[in-house]
Every structure is written in C-alpha cells, then in structure tokens.
C-alpha cells in the first residue's frame, strides 16, 4: 500500500514536470529587429519527437526545427530564427511533442516580438574611442588653422627629396613616381598622391621630367589633376605634359613588368614609391637599384616595409607616410590632424599601460570593456 502511494506520487510529479517544459522567445539585442532567439528545455517531457513551429493568424503552422532524443539539441537547445521577420510585429511559436505515430500534442505556446534597436550597446567602447580620436583631431586642426604653431619632428628621407630632384635635373634624367597599386579608396594612395603634388611642384621649378605610371583609372585622373595643379602653382603651366601620368594595367604583375621596363629603358635618376604596395615592392626596388637611381619609398603595408628598408635609400615607415605630406606642406590641417593623432596615441598608450597593470592585478574589466566584436 505504502509502495503504491509512493509510485503514484512519483508518477504525478513526473507528469507535472513533464507537462511544463521551458520555452522562451526573446529578442536579440543590438540588431535591426530581424531575428528572435528561441530556447527550449524539454527535460523529462514525454514524446518521441519535438517540433518548434511558427503559427500564423489562421493557425497554419510552419515547422522551424524538429528534434528527438538522439539530437544534440535535446533536451535543451536554442536557435536564432531570422526568416524574413519584421521588426515590431508579434509572432506566435508553438512547442509540440509527437508520439511514435507522429501525432502532435501542443505543449506550450509563446509569443515574441523582434525589435530594432537605435544603439548597439556592445559597441560603446568603440564609440568612446572614436569620439576621443575624432574630437582631438578636429580640435587640433582648428587650433592650427587659428594660427597655433605645431612642431613636427624630422622625418628621415624627406630632406633628400629636393636633392634627388636636383640630381635628376643635372643628369638630364627623369624622376619616376609610383603611387602604389591600390585604388583611390586606399588612404595610402591618397597620402602618396598628396606628396606627389609637392614633388611635382619642385620638379616644375627645376624643369625636370616626371613619369607617373599608374595601375588604376581613378588614380590616373586624380594624379593628372594634382600634377597639373602643381605646375600651375609653380607658374609653369606650359611645361605640364598630361601624358607624363599614364595607365598601364590593373593587373599587379602586368603593372610591375611595365614599370620595370620603364626603369631599365628611361633610367630615371630618382624613384619614389609612395602608396600601398604588395609583393611588387621588392621587384621595383631592386630593378631601380640596378639602374642606379636614388630611391625613396613609403608605405603602411607592414609586410612590405622590410623590403623597402633593405633595398631603398630612404624609407617612410608606416605612419611616416601620412606624416610626410604634413611635414612637406606644413599645411595647418595636416599638422593639426597629425597632432590629434599623437594625442590619440598618448591616450591609447595610457589606456594600454593601465590595462596591463590591471591585468597584473587580475582585474580584467578594462580589457573586457574594450574588446570589440
């Protein structure tokens, strides 16, 4: 008798638990409201197979997932559902079990509404860092424009620019400028072209010949305009030859083959490689060396700097490429921006050192806060 009561008790509790699986629908935070996360826990629930389905207003159901006792998502599991959901609309979901004959019994139903958020809170550290940088750069640009004098340290290789131009003029040989092989949408190309403007100005003054082979059409037209403007500024618009800037091909090595040909045939006295470079860096620099040119290179591509360092006379390393045009032009907006970047660097260094000290003491909050996904 005692036994029967106990067994009955067990059965009822099992049934009670069996009838209450856990089923939740939640919005995914920090998204555009196109997804919901569905989680379930069917521990102790009876049934051969389980279905999660979406139910519309006419009670039609659409199965989203099915699992059984062999599935990895049994008894607990979750999935992100994102098939053309509309933000703000309410959706009904049903968790059902099925017996061996696949007759379904709805266990529980829930509703969920995907919502779009106006701010992605995961990215707050990114926003803070972006603001610090943007504000310091803009602040120093305006203070430089307002007449504040900003110091900039010497950058090796830039003094030699004037000398190279002079040497080319004396020897009666041209000057080669290669703006890299990336398009205008790479900031390095733009930095290279800004320097080209200042170089072309000096060349126009000295009346030497400039050669600019390019591998992108947008770079072609921009380089042409920049060189033209430099000749105009130098008061030598008549000496400007639009064909000194010319297109070879978009192809990396096709372009290199072409530039190599120019180097060995025209024998430029000075070569400038300023922009974004890949594997071609060394082919250009070595061919240029064998033709006896003074070579100045600059790129922010970490993988190519070593080859320029090894094969060229002067190399602008990484950020120096961006600093170079500020150094040469002394234009307030460029100097100001450089100063702003330096402030950013100082802030980041302090944050880094604080972070390392915190890590040493086992506090991981700063690191976790800054980690952006």
């Amino acid at each position, binding site marked *: 008798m005692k036994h029967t009561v106990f067994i009955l008790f067990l059965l009822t509790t099992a049934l009670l638990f069996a009838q209450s699986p856990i089923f939740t629908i939640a919005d995914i935070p920090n998204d555009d409201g196109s997804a919901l996360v569905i989680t379930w826990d069917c521990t102790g629930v009876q049934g051969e197979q389980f279905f999660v389905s979406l139910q519309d207003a006419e009670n039609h159901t659409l199965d989203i997932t099915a699992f059984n006792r062999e599935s990895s998502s049994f008894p607990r599991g979750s999935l992100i559902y994102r098939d053309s959901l509309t933000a703000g609309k309410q959706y009904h979901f049903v968790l059902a079990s099925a017996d061996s004959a696949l007759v379904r019994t709805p266990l529980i139903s829930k509703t969920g509404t995907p919502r779009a958020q106006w701010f992605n809170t995961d990215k707050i550290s990114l926003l803070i860092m972006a603001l610090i940088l943007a504000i310091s750069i803009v602040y120093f640009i305006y203070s430089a424009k307002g007449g504040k004098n900003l110091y*900039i*340290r010497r950058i090796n290789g830039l003094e030699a620019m004037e000398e190279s131009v002079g040497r080319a003029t004396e020897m009666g040989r041209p000057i080669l400028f290669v703006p890299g092989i990336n398009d205008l*949408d*790479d900031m390095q190309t733009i930095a290279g072209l800004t320097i080209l403007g200042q170089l072309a100005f000096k060349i126009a003054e000295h009346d030497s010949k400039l050669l600019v082979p390019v591998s992108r059409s947008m770079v072609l037209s921009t380089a042409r305009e920049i060189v033209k403007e430099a000749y105009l500024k130098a008061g030598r618009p008549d000496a400007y030859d639009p064909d000194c800037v010319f297109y070879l091909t978009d*192809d990396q090595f096709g372009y290199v083959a072409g530039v190599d040909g120019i180097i060995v045939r025209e024998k430029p006295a000075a070569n400038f490689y300023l922009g974004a470079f890949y594997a071609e860096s060394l082919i250009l620099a070595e061919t240029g060396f064998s033709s006896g040119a003074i070579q100045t290179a600059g790129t922010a591509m970490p993988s190519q700097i070593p080859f320029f360092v090894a094969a060229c006379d002067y190399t602008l390393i990484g950020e120096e490429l961006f600093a170079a045009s500020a150094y040469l032009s002394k234009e307030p907006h460029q100097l100001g921006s450089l100063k702003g970047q*330096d402030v950013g660097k100082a802030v980041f260094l302090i944050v880094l050192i604080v972070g390392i000290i915190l890590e*040493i003491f086992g506090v991981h909050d700063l690191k976790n806060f*800054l980690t952006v996904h």
Partner: protein
Amino acid sequence: MTHFFNVFGIWLGAAFTFAIFSFLYKDNPFYKVAEQIFVGLSAGYWFIYTIFNILIPNLFLPLSTDFAANWIKLIPAFLGVLMLMRLVPNAEWMSRYPIALLIGTTSGLAFLRYLKSDVINQITATMINPFVGNNWVTVVGQILLVVGTITGVIYFYFSKKHEGAFGVSAKIGIYFLMVSFGAAFGYTAMARVSLLIGRLQFLLGDWLGIISP
C-alpha cells in the same frame, strides 16, 4: 588535337617563363615582347572579368530580370557612366560625383575598421599580464612584447623631439622595428623561394618531365 594543344600550351608557358627570366641577365627584346603581351593580356583579362563577374551579376541581371525591385541600381549605373566621362576632355569634372561616393564609403569603412582591428584590438591583445607563463621563455617573450609595442608606438610620435627618456624609448622602439623587419624579411625569403620552386617544378616536371609533379 587536344593533345597537341596541351603540349603546345606547355611549350608556350615555358617560352614565356624563359622570356621573363632573361630579364635577370639584362633587358632584351624577348623580355620586351613578353612584357607587352603581359600588359595587353592582363588588361584584356580584367576587362572581360569585370563584365562577367561584376557588371552582369550585380547590374544587368537584376535590372533585366526584375526591374521594379531593382530600379534603384540605375543610380550607380548612371554614376558609373559619369565615371567614363573622364575620357571626354571638358566633362572630366562629372566623374567627381562617383569618386566622391566611393571615397565617402571607404573613408567611413576605413575609419571604423582600422580603429577596431588595427588599433583597439591590438591594444587589448597587448593587455596581458607578462609575468604569467609556463616557463621563463614565455615570460621574457611577453615582457619583450609589451615593451616593444609601447616603445614602437612612441617612435611614431611626431609632435615631440626625440630626446631624453623619450628619445631612448623611441630608440628602443626602432630596435624592435628593425628586428621585426629582419624577421619578416627572413620569413619572406621562404615564400619567395617557394615561388621559384613552383616555377622549376613546372619547367622540370610539366615541360621536361624530369621529375614527377
């Protein structure tokens, strides 16, 4: 027939391989011909590639199959045509609109992408406790990593004279840069020699059949 063209293709490849290698001795007509063929073929390749892989699937197909849903793609198409205005002497300025759009998009992307991956993530990756490690080699390495990163960044400081303690840090920074350049150079030697190995495997294997590829 197919066999003939197979063999012919390999001979063509070998001939052009030698034409380019001849440049190592000195510039010569064989290299010049190979160079011009290379420039011409590659420009042609990118022309066909652009049409088949960029313009047809992204522009012409969407417009021709479902115009109502994709009419907005007429705007980039129009901007693309403005781009070609570069070729017309007095209408060159029109290409500034598409260029502005391209530059605006990449500037926005670059601003965030570099801040995230090349600045913040590199900083958090350096936030380590250098004194924790399995052995002393790791600890020494981690100290070098932290010191090298900090002094290296100091080297790139432009608005202050490199003198005093600051100058010493910048000097240590440039030492780290030099080690990294040397190591990268040494590593790349391996990559470049691999390319030569690949070429010789073609010449010795596919062409001469001395080694089995």
